[in-house]
């Protein structure tokens, strides 16, 4: 049994299990809410319930006073939903967030192709236009798999009737295995979206660094295609990480863009090239490629990271040590069943990292 909690003003939606606190669910699902003590005594996590019922749990009478209880305030760190909820939290809406509404679609598979030995590309035709910001993701309902699975959109927003997804087959992952092995051209899937806070902060004029690992290329691909199509003149750097040459997919696409757009720079990195790859490019992890290219000085840029958690982690450390900080780092972590659950104790130092 679980409840759906919508968090305003961003509109993020999280699933909260019976007996789970709103804060715990939010942090585990990558949605940041303000918090400090984590156990109902400090009131940092106070939120307003707009719709629905919640059990206030173990809130201290000094952290949540009677008048506030009457007004429908709760402490997210100890409140547990008793129904679906809409809450309002003290979080900021990014000025670049367009807030396109989430819509349900039916997608018909028109093409599937191997992009690399482990990643397939899927192209769907949608039954209606999908308005989204480059970098956002959709949820797919996969037959026989409980819940839904999230995948970033790889095409640019102007191609609004198609949907391009890059899917890595996760060992033991029921959803990705089904997509790789069962889904046939002509079949339809239920899709909803767009979701997420990963998009280009276009109002910020600094040059942009994109760091992508594995199938995490999808979002940066969409973002870069979108920016170039709009004639954006800032410098754009794409660092693409892969294990070996066969895993480095869509290389021709970006080499082509680099030839045509003087402000676009493509830097692929292989961390474990095979002898037969005869690799001449950067050998090492993708964050190391970025460190080498920028000589460990990243300030004055915006960075967009997309890929598996260890890659994101290493990239954040590299960027911060190169003096680029949280306000200029944006990311989408690709969690899979293989990553296990996120560690439970986290500090309140960072909001989104």
């Amino acid at each position, binding site marked *: 049994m679980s409840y759906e909690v919508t968090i305003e003003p961003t509109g993020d939606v999280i699933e909260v299990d019976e007996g789970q606190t709103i804060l715990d669910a939010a942090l585990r699902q990558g949605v940041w809410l303000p918090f400090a003590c984590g156990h109902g005594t400090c009131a940092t996590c106070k939120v307003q319930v707009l719709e629905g019922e919640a059990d206030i749990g173990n809130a201290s009478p000094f952290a949540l006073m009677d008048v506030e209880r009457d007004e429908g305030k709760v402490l997210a760190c100890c409140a547990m939903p008793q129904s679906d909820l809409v809450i309002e939290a003290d979080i900021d809406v990014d000025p670049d967030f367009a807030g396109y509404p989430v819509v349900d679609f039916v997608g018909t598979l028109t093409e599937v192709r191997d992009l690399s030995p482990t990643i397939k590309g899927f192209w769907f035709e949608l039954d209606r236009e999908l308005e989204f910001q480059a970098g956002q993701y959709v949820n797919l309902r996969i037959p026989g798999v409980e819940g839904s699975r999230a995948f970033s959109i790889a095409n640019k927003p102007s191609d609004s009737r198609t949907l391009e997804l890059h899917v890595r087959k996760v060992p033991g992952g029921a959803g990705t295995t089904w997509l790789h092995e069962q889904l046939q051209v002509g079949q339809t899937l239920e899709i909803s979206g767009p979701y997420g806070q990963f998009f280009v902060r276009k109002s910020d004029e600094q040059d942009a660094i994109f760091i992508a690992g594995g199938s995490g290329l999808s979002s940066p691909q969409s973002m870069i295609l979108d920016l170039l199509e709009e004639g954006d003149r800032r410098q754009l750097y794409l660092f693409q990480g892969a294990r070996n040459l066969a895993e480095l997919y869509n290389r021709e696409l970006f080499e082509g863009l680099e030839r045509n757009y003087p402000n676009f720079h493509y830097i692929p990195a292989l961390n474990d090239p095979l002898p037969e790859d005869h690799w001449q490019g950067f050998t090492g992890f993708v964050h190391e490629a970025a460190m080498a290219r920028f000589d460990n000085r990243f300030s004055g840029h915006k960075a967009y990271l997309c890929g598996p958690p260890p890659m994101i982690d290493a990239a954040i450390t590299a960027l911060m040590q190169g003096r680029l900080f949280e306000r200029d780092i944006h990311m989408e972590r690709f969690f899979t069943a293989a990553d296990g659950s996120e560690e439970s104790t986290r500090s309140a*130092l960072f909001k989104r990292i």
Partner: protein
Amino acid sequence: MAANKLNLKDKYRLLTRDLDWEFSYQERKKAFPFEEFEGIKITDWSKWEDPFRLTMDAYWKYQAEKEKKLYAIFDAFAQNNSQLNVTDPRYINAIKLFLTAVSPLEYQAFQGFAHTGRQFGGVGARVACQMQSIDELRHVQTQIHAMSHYNKFFDGFQDWSHMHDRVWYLSVPKSFFDDARSAGPFEYLVAISFSFEYVLTNLLFVPFMSGAAYNGDMATVTFGFSAQSDEARHMTLGLEVIKFLLEQHEDNVPLVQKWIDKWFWRGAQLLSIVGMMMDYMLPNKVMSWKEAWGVYFEEAGGALFKDLARYGIRMPKYVEQVQTEHMSHQLWWTMYTHGHATGFHTWIPTDEEMDWLSEKYPETFDKYYRPRWELAKQMEAEGNRFYTKALPQLCTTCQIPMLFTEVDDPTQLSFRDTVYHGERYHFCSDGCRDIFHEEPEKYVQSWLPVHQIFQGNCGGPGVEQVLSEYYGMNLGADNLDIKGSPDEQRWNRWKGVA
């Protein structure tokens, strides 16, 4: 979609942006003379992100509400004679120690934030410090009120503020804050807001509040909760300070690291007092000091320092030297053996308590500490309750008597010393010695109570006169063993025990 509604951040900015002012006939630098002298580089105050968004009118409204609730509970506590509901009179000694050692620090925090807030060129930091300053004043007042009730029934509460400034073991907490307040404004915030409030405060408040609850002291539980509800603002201020300094300039990183190293070590040594309360002074125990350290420092602090590593900040330097296996035992033993000179009662742990300690400290209690207590028990049975005749030697930095042992040998007392301008100074640990080396001119001025007694600055000539005339203790009532004390006799009378 509420995206276009004015969010709290914008509302707050509109309400507070005019709190700063331009300097038309003075140089801005002269208005904030301390901002640069520590070597911290601030390039852009506008990058300061308000750690919380609270306007003064909302602040007063909330605080008034809290006060109303708190004092209603105090009144009920007094009317119902709830002092009789605590587990046993030994418990009261933990709060005597709290009132003389910790509550005055709330007052020092009030003074410190008022002074420090004045020194920042950025208006956000100034407002945050101002609010915290008022909070801390409220904390000390609520604590005095809570304890004033106990003062009617028990010894040792009468002159806590006077004692805080003079008594030998109380110079430990006092010097901690004196050190912070006499530092520059950024060091003060790293010391108090970050190292103490953010990293270590849960070790003080959580066990202490649960300790009070486990022992039937609802007045203390209530002021604890009331203070905790302000604490989040203090903690988030600590976090914002650290992020701000580390992001403003890379040259700030080594300075911040040095301060974290120093204040973590000073804080850990100071908290040995809380460790002793938890392991020995609470009749109903919450968790051992070692367990509390594991949960509140190792787990929570581990996650924090993992995140800070991204800025190039590492774990505090002396973290491996914190001896959670030993410190509470060694400190209580020192208090017990100096029990004629303490403003609270001391005692030998009961047999059940010793079994609890063996269970919580399986590697160390039976091996090193139980034999001492067995000996003390035997001496007491023979009518020779042991009190040492000597005055302890104090560490020049933390002012704790040199009672802790070497990290690798719990049978060897840890002594460090150094010679500065022809004088020899003594320290309890590498950490304290290194802190001295960083700023010797500061610490040569330490007011060390035992030195002061020997120099004749605390009355005398005998220890008895120092205790009664200079410290203001009621000898025979405030000090000595709980057994046979007036506190115990009254308690037994109230409870109808023979």
